[in-house]
């Protein structure tokens, strides 16, 4: 492991990579050089021997021919000067050695065959070289035509050459080769180490820099040193580091921005959550408050035998139920607005008529609070317009309701003007100005946000879900306008909005929506109309049956979709009220089946508490003419019925007494009113004013609940005046009210 680790560095590997082949190369070269040197030295030795023996043989011709031993000795000694030559011997043709010079072992040559002598041979650490000595004749005749005779063999000479010098030279050669190889290896190792270090050190530096960068310090710069590739690598790392650094800066900036945004969003979310929590709390409170009243008074109603108290309980239950319904309607409206589900009608309407009704609704409340309600409409505002009067007046009604609600003294002024007109399109500017407590400036921007009220105390004081202004804003936007608010704390507020409407062509009559208030004056009936009420909830079923029966309709009931289908199949029906969510077969399927099984199926009006557009669309796709939301509004229901019944010939007759007027016997109502008036008389006669205001309030509630507006105005007038009138006048005013009740009831 240690060895592996030791040789895992690039420096070690470079050294190994360069030194290993170099060492092998040195060894091979040294071996080759030593071997080659041996061959060369041996060749040199042989060459020396050959030259010496040739020299002797060529020079010895004369001496041997003349048998001049002194000359032979001279010739022989001349080659003994050559260091390697140890001795030589001359032989004559008889193989007798004439002359031996130096140290020469004749026995060695004697033992050799003559053929072996031709080549040099080695014996006893000596090389022996042989050469014949011949006498070559010269033809020195100018015109010689004869054949030149063969050279005459005179004898031979053998030279012995020692290999000591060769061995010495070889040893020196080996030493030199080894020294040179070692030196070469050392130099190569030194160069390899230098080169390796020049590569590894920058790499180590780079690695260290990268490690540091990896640890998070991107401010370092890798030194651009070493070979070109490493410089490029370092440059690349530096560029990368710079990029990462810049990226980090950008990222930090982005994160900071995102964090800030997130914090803002979080705050907004928290605000929204808080608003929603507050809304839920308010809703809980707002829903529970009337529910508590409904539940409580319902129990009291069951236990109460006194007719007057029962009427009082019923009135309170009715009011609480209306409050609940209003609140739920607001929520539904808001839900629709959020889902973009507003569908604006495009019908002609008389703005004066609708505004008069609106003022009539809110007038009593304003009066009740001692406020003056002013209304002005510019002359340039056309009377007949095309648009959605319900939504238009809904916005004004909401603003007006708020204005009345938040104004303790002074008044509320409604102004409508036309600020732009082009062709048949106009833009109306409507404002509702009050002299109320005003709105804090910082609350104004969130005033139109859902679930927001200026403060929670408002809810507690004035009620409401905080959705009204949000719904208004959505409605105004849907009508192509915008809503604004201008307020001064302690002085009042001005809510204004614009909306786009169209001018109605006087020659053409577009479908008009009847003012619901007008219905009360229309005496119509559903007499002779057979209605199937398909509703699984028995209470709702009973309520609807009683309501329609009051209009003269003949009602059949079905507890589920299957029953509805069977009845529709068996009996003639003029119209079907179909609940969507029913057991066995739901309303959508039943509707679809009825439409399909009968070519001339009766019109179907769907009833549902589900406000989703999906369900509405499904129901309409199944064949329903329209859809009404629960709880069923009587006016809407009757209007819808008259709309889908072609043979009805006009608007159905309304009882003109509100919802309870259809379910509460007239005698009971009359008795309740009379009881209240009797109480008033008693109070006035006994000069007891303690419960006087409460009794007046009850009368106002009953008259309002029963839709007796004239009676209600009389009571309200009395409430305003009774403090300033004497007892007799007050009693006469009570009598006047009693007479009015008598006349109203009997008519």
């Amino acid at each position, binding site marked *: 492991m240690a060895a592996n680790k030791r040789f895992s560095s690039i420096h070690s590997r470079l050294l190994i990579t360069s030194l290993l082949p170099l060492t092998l190369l040195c060894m091979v070269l040294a071996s080759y050089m030593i071997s080659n040197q041996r061959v060369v030295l041996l060749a040199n030795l042989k060459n020396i021997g050959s030259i010496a023996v040739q020299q002797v043989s060529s020079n010895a011709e004369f001496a041997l*021919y*003349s048998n001049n031993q002194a000359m032979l000795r001279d010739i022989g000694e001349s080659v003994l000067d050559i260091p390697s030559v140890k001795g030589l011997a001359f032989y004559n043709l008889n193989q007798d050695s004439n002359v031996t010079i130096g140290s020469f072992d004749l026995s060695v040559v004697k033992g050799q065959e003559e053929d072996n002598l031709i080549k040099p041979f080695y014996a006893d650490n000596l090389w022996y070289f042989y050469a014949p000595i011949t006498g070559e*004749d010269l*033809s020195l*005749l*100018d*015109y*010689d035509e004869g054949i*030149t005779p063969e050279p005459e063999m005179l004898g031979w000479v053998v030279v012995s050459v020692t290999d000591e010098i060769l061995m010495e030279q070889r040893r020196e050669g080996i030493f030199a080769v080894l020294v040179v190889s070692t030196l070469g290896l050392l130099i190569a190792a030194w160069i390899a180490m230098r080169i390796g270090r020049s590569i590894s050190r920058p790499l180590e530096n780079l690695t260290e820099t990268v490690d540091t960068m990896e640890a998070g310090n991107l401010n370092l710069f890798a030194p651009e040193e070493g070979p070109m590739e490493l410089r490029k690598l370092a440059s690349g790392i530096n560029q990368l580091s710079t990029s990462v650094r810049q990226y980090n800066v950008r990222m930090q900036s982005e994160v900071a921005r995102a964090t800030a945004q997130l914090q803002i969003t979080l705050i907004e979310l928290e605000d929204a959550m808080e608003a929603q929590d507050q809304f839920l709390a308010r809703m809980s409170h707002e829903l529970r408050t009337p529910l508590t009243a409904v539940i409580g008074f319902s129990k009291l109603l069951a236990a109460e035998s006194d007719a007057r108290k029962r009427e009082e309980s019923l009135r309170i239950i009715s009011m609480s139920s209306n409050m609940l319904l209003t609140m739920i309607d607001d929520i539904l409206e808001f839900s629709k607005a959020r889902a973009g589900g507003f569908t604006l009608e495009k019908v002609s309407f008389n703005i004066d008529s609708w505004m008069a009704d609106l003022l009539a609704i809110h007038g009593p409340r304003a009066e009740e609070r001692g406020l003056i309600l002013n209304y002005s409409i510019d002359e340039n505002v056309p009377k007949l317009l095309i648009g959605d009067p319900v939504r238009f007046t809904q916005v004004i009604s909401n603003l007006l309701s708020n204005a009345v609600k938040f104004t303790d003294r002074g008044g509320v002024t409604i102004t409508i003007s036309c600020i732009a007109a082009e062709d048949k399109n106009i833009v109306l500017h409507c404002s509702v100005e009050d002299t109320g407590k005003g709105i804090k400036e910082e609350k104004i921007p969130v005033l139109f946000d859902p679930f927001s009220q200026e403060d929670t105390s408002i809810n507690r004081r004035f009620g409401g879900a905080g959705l009204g202004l949000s719904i208004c804003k959505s409605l105004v936007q849907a009508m192509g306008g915008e809503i604004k608010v201008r307020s001064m704390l302690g002085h009042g507020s001005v809510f204004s909005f614009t909306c786009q409407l169209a001018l109605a062509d006087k020659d053409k009559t577009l479908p008009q929506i009847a003012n619901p208030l007008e219905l009360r004056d229309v005496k119509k009936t559903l007499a002779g109309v057979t209605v199937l009420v398909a509703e699984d909830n028995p209470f709702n079923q009973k309520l609807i049956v009683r309501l329609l029966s009051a209009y003269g309709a003949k009602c059949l009931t079905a507890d589920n979709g299957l029953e509805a289908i069977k009845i529709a199949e068996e009996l003639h029906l003029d119209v079907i009220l179909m609940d969507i969510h029913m057991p066995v077969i739901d309303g959508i399927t039943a509707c679809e089946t009825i439409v399909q099984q009968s070519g001339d199926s009766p019109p179907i009006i769907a009833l549902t508490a589900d406000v989703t557009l999906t369900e509405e669309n499904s129901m309409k796709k199944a064949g329903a003419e329209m859809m009404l939301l629960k709880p069923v509004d009587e006016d809407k229901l009757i209007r819808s019925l008259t709309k889908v019944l072609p043979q009805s010939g006009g608007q159905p007759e309304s009882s003109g007494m509100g919802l309870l007027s259809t379910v509460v016997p007239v005698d009971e109502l009359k008795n309740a009113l009379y009881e209240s008036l009797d109480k008033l008389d008693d109070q006035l006669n006994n000069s007891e004013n303690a419960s006087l205001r409460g009794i007046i309030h009850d009368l106002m509630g009953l008259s309002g609940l029963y839709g007796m507006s004239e009676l209600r105005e009389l009571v309200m007038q009395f409430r305003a005046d009774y403090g300033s009138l004497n007892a007799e006048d007050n009693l006469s005013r009570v009598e006047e009210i009693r007479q009015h009740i008598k006349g109203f009831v009997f008519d």
Partner: protein
Amino acid sequence: MKPVRRSAKYWLASLFLLIFACSYAIADRKSSILFVASKPSADYVEVLNSVKQQLEILSPERYEFNTVFRSSEPELKADLAAADFIVTIGTAAADTVFSNRPKAPILSVLITENAFSALTEKHYGSTDAAFAAQVSSICLDQPVMRSIRLAKFLVPESSGVGVMLGPASAHRQAELSKYITDSALQPKFVSINAKDNPINKIEPVLSRSDVFIPISDSRLINIATAKWILHLSYRYKVPVIAFSKSYLKAGALAAIYSAPEDVAKDTVDWLMEPARAKVGSLNKPTHYSLNFNRSVAANLKIKLQTEQFYRDRINLEAR
């Protein structure tokens, strides 16, 4: 009788005209010279061409030439039979021609005296018989006297002159001795036989001589001794005056020899005297060449004059 006379006169006149015509024809006929050379080497061709050219110059239209080199015998025989004169160039050519014993006179050139003698004995029985058969020769052997005179001029301080004789030249020792002595020099003769050790025989003489003159002998003796003479000459610093150009090149100080142009001149001289062909003879060359090995002279520290200088001296001495 008168017609008879006229007829005789007519016949005599006709005979006269016939004889005249024949003699004219004979007198106008060119002499045919057949050149037979041993080989077509440069020296031989040079001799051949030089002879032809000189003859053409000296006697234009007189000779016609036929040249053959040693070829097949039948053709040669025809040529030999057709030739008026035969000139053999080289020993082998002489051997071939002599073996055919043609009737035409023969002149052998480029042959040593010893070779000529040997061939005539071989083919004619004796040299005289050959002479009788109109066989003549101009031998290559220059007169030894020229060498002796040259030796005297080259090495004026010399006293002893070594002379090597072989079996073929041994008989000339007395003659040579006289020449040398007449030249105020001391002759030192050494005779070599084929079985002698040349060194052992020559060295004692040569080492004691101031100048050494080998006499051309048989080929065997010449070859066997030349190397050792030159070796000893070098060893003992004794100048050698040789008889061939090859000898000179091999290490002799000087040489008097018959160059191809000398042979050609002698041949032409001989051919221009037709009478000489009627009787065979052995003739010494008249013309010669003289050359030095100046490297040897430098080693021997001998200052040389021009060749012409010595030639003039030799010629002057000869007169």
